[in-house]
């Protein structure tokens, strides 16, 4: 009698265990499904938003992208422009500050052989980068592009990565260069100066510039990891 009862109980327990296991596995599956659904939906939404922004922003002006425009600033020119090194730079970017002395040295070394062009590519997350680009462009209007460009980098550590407007400091740079301050001030705040900077950025984006500094040697994007890399590329271009 009791044996029969035991057997019944055991069977019931077994059945319960099987049922519980089944429940757990459905729950597990449901958890996995919902997780993937959530992640999938997210990806679809992000891709959609990306597509929409791209369609609305990129559709307008792919007409003429140029690596070097007639108004682009040449730090120095070589006869015939056989080899041209273009740098897209951000005055506030740390890596550009590190590249600055290297470029200065290369300019000396390849003087008369290589054309060096600098183009603006201020990045939005750098608080003063666009101001710096406008300050340099305003100096360029008075023929002092190179001096202002050097000034920015030489003391970059003084002003970079501070989240406060550096207008006063940039003004003092302009004064230090002996610029006509009224004209500089006017150009600094002129929307066309900003438009000039933005033109460079638009060209850079269209050319696939993702960060700064980005170098193009004779139209070819360089990915140098050292000074020697740039030198080797320049030497190859000069030889070729």
């Amino acid at each position, binding site marked *: 009698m009791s044996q029969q009862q035991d057997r019944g109980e055991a069977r019931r327990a077994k059945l319960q265990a099987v049922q519980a296991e089944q429940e757990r596995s459905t729950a597990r599956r449901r*958890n*996995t499904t919902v997780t993937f659904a959530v992640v999938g939906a997210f990806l679809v939404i992000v891709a959609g938003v990306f597509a929409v922004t*791209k369609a609305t922003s990129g559709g307008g002006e792919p007409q003429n992208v140029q690596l070097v425009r007639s108004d682009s600033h040449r730090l120095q020119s070589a006869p015939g422009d056989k080899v041209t090194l273009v740098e897209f730079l951000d005055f506030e970017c740390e890596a550009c500050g590190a590249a600055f002395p290297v470029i200065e040295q290369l300019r000396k070394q390849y003087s008369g052989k290589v054309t060096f062009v600098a183009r603006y590519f201020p990045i939005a997350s750098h608080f003063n980068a666009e101001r710096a680009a406008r300050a340099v462009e305003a100096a360029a209007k008075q023929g002092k592009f190179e001096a202002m460009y050097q000034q920015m980098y030489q003391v970059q550590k003084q002003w970079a990565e501070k989240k406060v407007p550096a207008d006063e400091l940039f003004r003092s740079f302009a004064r230090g260069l002996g610029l006509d301050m009224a004209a500089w001030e006017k150009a600094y705040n002129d929307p066309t100066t900003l438009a000039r900077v933005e033109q460079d950025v638009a060209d850079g984006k269209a050319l696939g510039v993702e960060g*700064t500094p980005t170098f193009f040697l004779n139209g070819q994007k360089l990915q140098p990891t050292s000074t020697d890399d740039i030198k080797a590329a320049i030497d190859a271009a000069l030889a070729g």
Partner: protein
Amino acid sequence: MLLSPADTAQQDRAGFPRLLPVLLLVGGLIGLAAAFALTVEKIALLKDPDYVPSCSINPVLSCGSIMKTPQAELFGFPNPLLGVASFAVLVTVGAALLAGARFHRWFWYGLQLGATLGVVFVHWLIYQSLFVIGALCPYCMIVWAVTIPTFVYVTLRNFPARRLTRYHSVIVALWFLAVITLILIRFWSYWSSLI
């Protein structure tokens, strides 16, 4: 209170007996590696202020600029030191659980306290990184990514809520997606320039 074997089994299953030890061990190791790398980079930066850390890839992904901020030393010493110590604890606890260790309740509450403080701190750092500093640091993001699931699973183990426990990975996924959304929105112009 006496629990039948079935009851304890039930309770153990609710506490992610297989997942949690592995998560603590592997997550702890990853977090430890990231915190260690940050510490080494910090020392290199102290030796040479011009040093550009390996994780300063571009203007957005730039730990160099982040490591120089006061937020990187909230308690007066570099934050990654906290990570090196805490993640080592997670590794130990995970390994102990895998080896069959059983802990008193107070131990689990201690782990809960640590995981909670960790997740709060990490979210303060996320906020600072995104909205105050305006840059991302890859090693730090690894730490964020490890801290969130650690907190979720330790909490669900200690305070099991049937519904939430059932959808455990959904919670983690939503949490991650929320952070990713903030990152996308904050640096949208940069991301869209990549495509």
